[in-house]
Structure formats: C-alpha cells, structure tokens
C-alpha cells in the first residue's frame, strides 16, 4: 500500500487550534449505574459539566459536533438536542457525525480543522454511547409490512400488507456489533490478528493489569478532578478494579478465538474492554478565544490522520488501521516515535496495543504494508497509556475519543510545566470497519 502524501494547506496561514479542557461522566458498565439513562441524558450531563467548569452558560460556541455509535433513529439530531437541553446558548449550532469508535476523535478533527481555517473560533467535540439504552428495531419483514400498511389507502390493502408477516418477523432486531461483511465479531477478528502476530496471553494480561493500576493511581492523585463530573451517583469508573492482579487476570477463561486451536485463544474478559455507558466532551478553540474568555490552554491540536485497512479479504487486521495512519502523521510533521512523550493507544483489546506495536517493529510489515524503508521503531512501554486506558476505564464507543484527548492534553500541559520544554502526545484510536483515527497534540 503506497503512503498517501499530504502537505499543510498553502496560502493563508492556518490558525492554531487548542484544547482548552474536557469533561466526561464516569464510565459505567452496561446495565448498571446508567441503566435508565438515554444517550441524550448522558451527553447532556457531560456537556453541562463542561459548561459549568468553564463558565460557558449562555455562550454561543462555533459548533458542537459528535454523536453516538448505537443510536435510536429518533435521535437523528442528538447533539443539537443536547445543546438545546444544556446551558449553552441555543444559538450554538451542532451536528451529528459517526465513525464507530473513532467518533469522538473524528469530531475533534472536524472542529479543529474549522478552527484552523477560520470558520469557527470555538467548539466542543462530543461522544456518547449506552448499551443500556441500545436501540432495538423490528425485523425487516415487520418493518416492510408496517411501511406498506402506512402507505395503503384501503383497509384491504392494509390487511394484505400484514398478511405477509411470518412469525419469525416478530423477533426484534438487536443492533449488530458484528462486522457486516465478515459476520465476525470484533473480538473474533482481533483474535485472528492476535494469533497472527503471536501475541501471548501474559503480554495481554500485563497490559490489562497496567491499565487498572495506572487508572487507579490517576484517580487517587486527583488527576480527574477537573476532567470528570459525577453522574447519577457514580463518582468513578465502575469497571476499574484497583485490586486486580496478574494472577487474577490469569485465571480468566478465553472468550474470543476459541475456534483457532489449542493454546491459540488468549483473549479474556480481563484483557478485552467491556460494554460500557458514558459520554465525553472536549472544549476546543483558538488561543485568542481562550484568552478572551479567560480560559487556560492545555495543548495545541497539531494534526490528525485517518486510515482504513482491507480486513475483509484478510490482508490486514480489523483494528490495525492506526498502525497505517501514525507513520504518515509523524512523517508529515517531521517527527519520529522518539519525539513523542505520551502514547495514547486505545485499548479496544490489550492485543490491539500489542499488535500495533509489533507491526511498527516488523521490517517486512513496515515495508510491504506501510511503505516505509524499515521498521517504524519501538515505543517505550512506560510512555504508553500512563494514566490508564479503555481496559480499565471502559469504552463507551463514541465517548472514548474525548476521554483520551482531554487526558493527553492535560498530560502534555503538566509535563511542559514540569520540564519547561514542549511535550507531545500521540493518540491512536482503532474503529470498526477497519478504520483508524490518529492525532498529534503538543503542549501549548
């Protein structure tokens, strides 16, 4: 696959887009604390916490952008509805967008691009998801019958429409999380990738263990005091197991890849993310807008790159697209892995992180698939997900991007304040459909 080349836009100089701050609600395991809350409830809460933190009541922002992966059709204008239900000015425009698990990050990319171009001075990237309130649709058969009946002009025609119904049509259709083109779940796909790259069970459990211990420490340090607002009595991510151990993780039975053969199934409930409810929001703007509003600036949203891979024909792993995007992002900005202080690699599964790292260290893969001269390089493990990631926090699909951006921005701001030197963070989020979004932050 040839590397895509792109250069910054010529002509009028681009403005800096900066991360001012973020807010999320604690993430909750599906069916628990937020069982009775809708996507709109979750996202409105995240937005309200952000408004309160930054005193944005009655403010007209450039745009609020984001969405949900599992979404009711009635929520077609979800983000706009949340803006109208918030303390922001109703004159703040909004739109919904969706790129599976990369929704939150892609929303930030969309807004920062507008900010850089001068089309907006401020904006909020948002994302929400709830498994507890997942849309359950009627079957295609019943749906067709209902539509036909609604168009029918006579009672006879209406009855004819329903006469086509078969008992099986009455079965509700749950939202699919399997890949439509392969019929495999994400976990099964990743199990194949994991096996192909020879990732061990121990290495995966180690990633999970570090995720929990890092997240627990981060909570205890008060790092989230200005990043999270409690919701419905939940004050911390309830998937977090501060007392977990490698021994405990080692006792869990594999849940994915059981058909791969003896010893090949290594992915457990402990080293895979659980289904989670939650929402996040990130405040973005120009430096000038932040200064006018007496707001701090955490980081510059430098650049972003997305990628897609051919997983359908088995050429690449479903969740390996970020491995393709990152070298292009680094090259465009004249950087190498060594220039990055913090790596935020979304832990869809522990092995997602490990296969991505393995791919960058593999000369053949880097040459044949990434179009590089040699291996991209090795990442220092102590720079990866230093404050925990999705394995411990949970992963409400569209909300994860916002969680990561806010954490990464605060990390680089803290590091720069400590050292007096610029600090950089690289964000990598894999997504269903063989997609990946990546971004680069630098201390402001």
């Amino acid at each position, binding site marked *: 696959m040839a590397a895509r080349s792109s250069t910054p836009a010529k002509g009028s100089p681009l403005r800096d887009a900066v991360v001012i701050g973020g807010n999320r609600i604690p993430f909750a395991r599906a069916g628990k604390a937020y069982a009775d809350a809708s996507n709109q409830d979750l996202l409105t*809460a995240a937005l309200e916490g952000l408004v*309160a933190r930054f*005193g944005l009541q009655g403010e007209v922002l450039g745009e609020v952008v984001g969405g949900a992966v599992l979404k009711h059709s009635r929520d077609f204008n979800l983000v706009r509805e949340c803006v109208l239900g918030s303390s922001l000015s109703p004159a703040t425009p909004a739109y919904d967008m969706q790129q599976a698990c990369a929704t939150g990050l892609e929303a930030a990319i969309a807004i920062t691009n507008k900010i850089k171009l001068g089309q907006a001075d401020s904006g909020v990237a948002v994302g929400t998801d709830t498994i507890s309130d997942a849309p359950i649709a009627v079957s295609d058969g019943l749906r067709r019958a209902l539509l036909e009946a609604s168009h029918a002009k006579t009672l006879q025609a209406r009855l004819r429409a329903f006469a086509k119904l078969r008992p099986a049509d009455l079965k509700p259709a749950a939202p699919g999380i399997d890949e439509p083109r392969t019929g495999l779940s994400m976990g099964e796909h990743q199990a194949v990738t994991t096996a192909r790259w020879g990732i061990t069970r121990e290495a995966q459990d180690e990633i999970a263990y570090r995720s929990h211990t890092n997240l627990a420490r981060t909570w205890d340090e008060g790092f989230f*005091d200005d990043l999270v607002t409690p919701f419905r009595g939940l*004050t911390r991510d309830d998937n977090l197991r501060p007392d977990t151990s490698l021994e405990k993780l080692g006792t869990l039975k594999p849940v994915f890849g059981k058909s791969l053969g003896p010893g090949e199934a290594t992915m457990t409930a402990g080293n895979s993310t659980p289904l989670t409810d939650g929402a996040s929001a990130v405040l973005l703007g120009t430096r000038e807008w932040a200064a006018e509003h007496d707001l701090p600036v955490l980081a510059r949203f430098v650049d972003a790159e997305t990628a897609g891979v051919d997983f359908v024909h088995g050429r690449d792993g479903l969740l390996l697209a970020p491995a393709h995007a990152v070298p292009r992002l680094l090259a465009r900005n004249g950087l190498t892995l060594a220039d990055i202080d913090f790596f935020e690699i979304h832990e869809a599964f522990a092995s997602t992180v490990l296969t991505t790292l393995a791919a960058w260290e593999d000369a053949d893969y880097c040459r044949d698939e990434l179009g590089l001269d040699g291996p991209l390089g090795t990442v220092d493990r102590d720079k990866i997900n230093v404050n925990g990631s999705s394995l411990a926090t949970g992963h409400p699909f569209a909300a994860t991007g916002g969680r990561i951006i806010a954490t990464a921005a605060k990390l680089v701001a803290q590091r720069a304040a400590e050292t007096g030197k610029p600090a950089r963070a690289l964000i990598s989020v894999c997504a269903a459909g063989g997609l990946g979004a990546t971004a680069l932050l630098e201390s402001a």
Partner: protein
Amino acid sequence: MTDTYTLFVNKGLGKTVAKKLGLPRPALLRRYKSGAPLTVGPVLLVADAASTPDARALGEVMRGWGLDVVERFVASSTDRAPEGTNGPRTPEPSAPAEQRWGAIVVVLTGLSRPADAAAAVLALPDALKRLAPGGRVVTVSTAPADGDAPALAAARHGVDGFLRSLAKELRFGATANGILLAGDAGAEHPSTLAALRFLLSAKSAFVDGQFLTVSPADAAFVDSPRTWEKPLDGRVAVVTGAARGIGAAIAKTLARDGATVVCVDVPAAGEGLARTANAVGGTALQLDVTAPDAGERILAHARERHGRLDVVVHNAGILRDKLLANMDATRWESVVAVNVEAQLRINEALLAAAERGELDGLRIVSLASTSGIAGNRGQTNYGFTKAGVIGHTTATAALLAAHGGAANAVAPGFIETDMTAHIPFVPRQVARRANSLQQGGQPVDVAEAVAFLASPLAAGITGQTLRVCGQNLVGR
C-alpha cells in the same frame, strides 16, 4: 424538607382547628422578592429626647428609601402615658386606626442610665399590638464599651435583655433585632444603614433576637436603588460546599446580588456542583477544601478565570454525630479537618495574599452553627469545630482589618435541608419548633445573612457571628 405542619395551620380547616385547640401556629414567613416593598407597612420611629438627633437622621434615610415614617419622639415617660396605664395619651398620629405598622424602629443611642429607657420603651406597648404580621422591631443603641460608667454600662447592656425578651413576645412572623453602634460609628454610617435595611427587610426573615455591631470603617457607598439591588455587582465570590442545600442557596443569592460565583465542592459532589454553577452562571471548581493547597487553588482559579476575588464563603461542612463515649478517631478528625482546619488553611493563603497587597477589602464569611454556641448532644466534634469557627472569625477579622477586609460568621439554627430531613420525626419536630418563630428556617435565610455580610456595605461589621435561628431557645 417541607414543613407540612406550618403549611397545614396556615389555611382552611387546619387554621381553624389549630386556633381552637391553641396549637402553635408558626407563620409563613415573608421572604425577599425583587421589587417588593421593604416593609409591610409604615414605620413608627420612636426615640427618647437624647436619641432624637440620631432618630431624625435615620428617619430621613428611611424616607429616602420610600418608606412612610411616623415619628414619635418622647421627652420623658410621663409625656407618653398617664400614671398607672400603658396606653397612649393621645390617639396614634397619622396612621389610620386599621393600619398596622410594618416596622417599629426604636432609637436608644442617647441612654445614659437605665431610668432613661422608660420614655421610649413605654411608647411601644400600643404600637406592638398593631405590628403587622411579618413586621419588624429594630433597636438602634450604643454598644457597651470599656470604661463606660456603671450606670451607662447598665443602660447599654440593658437593651440586650430587653430586645431578646421582646423578640420572644412577637407573633405572626414578626421579629425583633438590634443594631449596636460601636466606637465612633454613627447612626448614619453606611453599615448602620445596611444593617437597618437588612433587618427591616424580608431578607432577615429567620433572624430574630440578634444584634449586629457596627464599627467605624470606611465604606465606599452611594445610597441608591442600584446599591441596594445589586450590592455585589462586579464582585467575585467563592462558595465552598456549593453543590446543594445551604451552599447552593448562598451561591444563588450572591449571584442575585450581582456577584460572579465560583462554586466549590468535593469532586464526588460534582453533579450538583455543575447544576449550581450553571444556575448562577458561575464556574464549578471540583476541589476538596482539605487539600493542602486548596487556598492557593481557589485564589488562582478566581484570579485566572474572573480576574479578582472579593468574597470567600466557607460553607463546606460535615456531620459525624456520635456521643463522645462512642467517638472514634475518624469521626472526630474528619469533622475537624473539614469544618475548621480547612477554613484556617485557606484563610492563611488568603491572608498571605492580602499581606502582599493583592486582596484589599476581602470579605470572609464562615458558617458556624448554634451547636457551636449552645452545644448539642452527640455533637462534641461538630460543636468543637463550629465554636472554633466563631473563635477564628474574631481573630481573622483583626488580621484582615489592616487590609480593609472583614471576617464574619453566620450560625444557622434548624434549617430545612436534606441534612435535617434525615433527623427522625419526633426530634425533628422538637428541633423545628424550639425557637421564637416555631419553625425551621430555609437555606435562603442563611444565604441572605451571608450575602449581607459579604457585601461591601457591611464594611463596618466584622469579627461577628450572626445567628440565623429564629431565636433558638438555647444559647444567646
């Protein structure tokens, strides 16, 4: 949190039954509404001869506020009532027979010995019978001072016992409170006027039987409607424990008075905190006040986000009730840490900034409690901290004075909140009724007192603890 009994005895069948059976009938208290008249009727201004100059000055001011003021300046007690009676010699001047007094202001600044009080006091009995529901009695007298001659000291102290007794006699939501002028503070001092206006208004609904002492202090002040409507205009205030209850009410009241409010509470209370901050158009700062750097962080937030800091309200507090015989270290230490040590540590940071000349005119208001005055069974820890607040308030006031600042405390009695709603039914009813107004106060009653003490108008009031307790039957 609703006091069902009070609602029941104030209308329809409940009112009739309570009257017939002679049950207590707590009044529905008048509370502040923007644009509503200051008092519920005309003001009767009473003074003895020696206090007449001060009374005239106050009368002028009150007329300027649009109040209908009727003067009754009496030369001596015989001038007022015939021997052996306490009725008036002549019919009431100007106020029609059916009209009720909205307030009676008694000026006693000229007293030189106890016998002098009779003139003004004996002019009151008839007027009190015609005090409107929700009416006010306010005395203005001179604060006792070191070096007062024995007779002078007796007269000045006498006002204290007189006023507190009178407050217990008033009914139908009427209250009696006093203003004490200390040092060279005169009747026309801005803070005297601010105190008078506060005590006359619905803002002091649950303040009863209390005194405010006014000391001479510079107060930049223009007596205009704008001053009274938005006394905190352009000011920045921090309220700790703002997520709910009294703290949320304080944040809302300060915002109503024009302040930009920084709402502070522990991270775990963030949901309510965000609600408060968004309701008042302020900012939410999730911060544990017991953090060692809480003061610096509050100061930094206020400065960086709002450009200044004028008011700090220490409202955050916790209860861990237990008889001392059963007290454990956690219960004692957590209450001390939150209720008093945190306030002290934050004040140290504020005082350090004031020393650097960065916080001139800072006003600190701390939440004490009647438990810190009268004590309460099961609350040795809480009472210790709340009395501690009263103590450090006086000490802090002395330190802040050099920087034009002030520190005061507000001591709530029984207030209807989530916290008191958890008290079992019978003790709750007893606690509720054990004050002159026979009911619990609302969070807004505490908030009004805090807002009054937080305003620059109250510059001459410092180092004091104002009780908001409906004249709780225990303690002063």
